[in-house]
């Protein structure tokens, strides 16, 4: 590698030869090393400048706060856009009879789908973690003193079976694709974290709902038996359940165009 350039045939005995060959190789490789280092520094700089989240928790939590803020803003945007849609829908038809029918149909569908806020009589179920502590009890018993996603699901299912027409948990309207899911110390409802107490509101015949909830062996029965303070059922003359605030535009599901479908009057 450039060794014979400026030296007579290499002999290890002569120190000056040795020195010269050393110098040439050294310079060549120093240049290569310099290039390597430059490339490396440049790439590291690039990493620092691009917004790859750092592996430290401060950075990540900061990112999290920003994203959370953005999600709230987006939710507000969705709300205002949906308001716009309903305004437009309401402003257009009114004089035309056919339009009126369609609008009524649409409103009914939207109410059923949970896209409008609704009011009416019903029950409020409040679930909370037990204050009692059983330090000596097995883990399974200790787990029961905490309200889990399964418990909320059981109550909601019971309310649906008993004919509840609109249900919300902590003001999150439950719609067809709502999920109630455990995520560490919180329960995610409609993909928003919720903490105890969980307030389930359901519109329907209060008496029927109440009776259905209190069936022996049911969710209420079990929880009440564990600790009476964990669950409370209250009747309400007038409940207001908010509209679903999440996104409603489907990304994957496409309607199938068939004439044989029932309910074809609401075709789009």
């Amino acid at each position, binding site marked *: 590698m450039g060794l014979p350039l400026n030296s007579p045939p290499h002999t290890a005995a002569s120190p000056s030869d040795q020195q010269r060959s*050393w110098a040439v*190789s*050294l310079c060549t490789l*120093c240049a*290569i*090393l*310099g290039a390597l280092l430059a490339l490396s520094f440049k790439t590291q700089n690039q990493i620092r400048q691009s917004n790859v989240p750092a592996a430290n928790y401060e950075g990540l939590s900061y990112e999290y706060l920003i994203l959370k803020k953005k999600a709230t803003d987006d939710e507000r945007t969705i709300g205002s856009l949906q308001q716009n849609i309903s305004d437009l829908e309401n402003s257009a038809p009114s004089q035309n009879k056919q339009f009126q029918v369609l609008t009524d149909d649409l409103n009914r569908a939207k109410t059923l789908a949970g896209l409008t806020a609704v009011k009416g009589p019903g029950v409020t179920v409040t679930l909370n973690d037990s204050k009692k502590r059983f330090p000596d009890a097995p883990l399974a018993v200790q787990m029961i003193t905490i309200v889990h996603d399964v418990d909320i699901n059981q109550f909601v299912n019971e309310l649906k079976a008993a004919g509840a027409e609109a249900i919300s948990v902590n003001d999150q309207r439950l719609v067809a694709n709502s999920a109630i899911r455990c995520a560490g110390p919180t329960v995610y409802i409609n993909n928003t974290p919720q903490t105890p107490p969980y307030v389930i509101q359901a519109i329907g015949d209060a008496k029927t709902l109440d009776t259905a909830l209190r069936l022996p062996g049911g969710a209420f029965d079990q929880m009440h038996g564990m600790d009476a303070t964990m669950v409370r059922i209250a009747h309400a003359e007038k409940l207001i359940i908010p509209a679903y605030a999440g996104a409603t535009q489907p990304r994957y599901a496409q309607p199938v165009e068939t004439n044989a479908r029932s309910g074809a009057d609401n075709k789009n």
Partner: protein
Amino acid sequence: MIWLALASGLIGFAAIWFTKGATIPIADASYLSLAALAGIDSLIGGLRAGTEGKFRGNVFVSGFVVNTLLAAFLAYLGDRLGQNLALAAVVALGGRIFVNLSITRRQWLDHRADLSSTRRAAQLAAKSPQQYAGEPTMDGESRN
């Protein structure tokens, strides 16, 4: 000569640093850093060999090339295997850099001490030639 090496290193550095398109994917950055570390290690190994008078160009060049590629390849292989082999390379190379540097430093200091003692012996010999002529024990003097 040190300055010559540093200058060529700087030239290589500047050549890449000021070239706009000379970058690599961020995913491969860690391999590149390791290759650079292996290069530094080889360079310092060469420095040590040079001060010991055992420098051999072909060993140096092949060592530089092979170690650089091997370090990067080991890191890549480690990523594929799910083992942090890059850490092993960093520990080995880093340790060797320290060892070689300390040995080089010692030898350089010894070398300086030898030089100064030789000079002193020559001065003394010039003053009183009959006393120091053919006296081979410079070592004894240098360890005062």
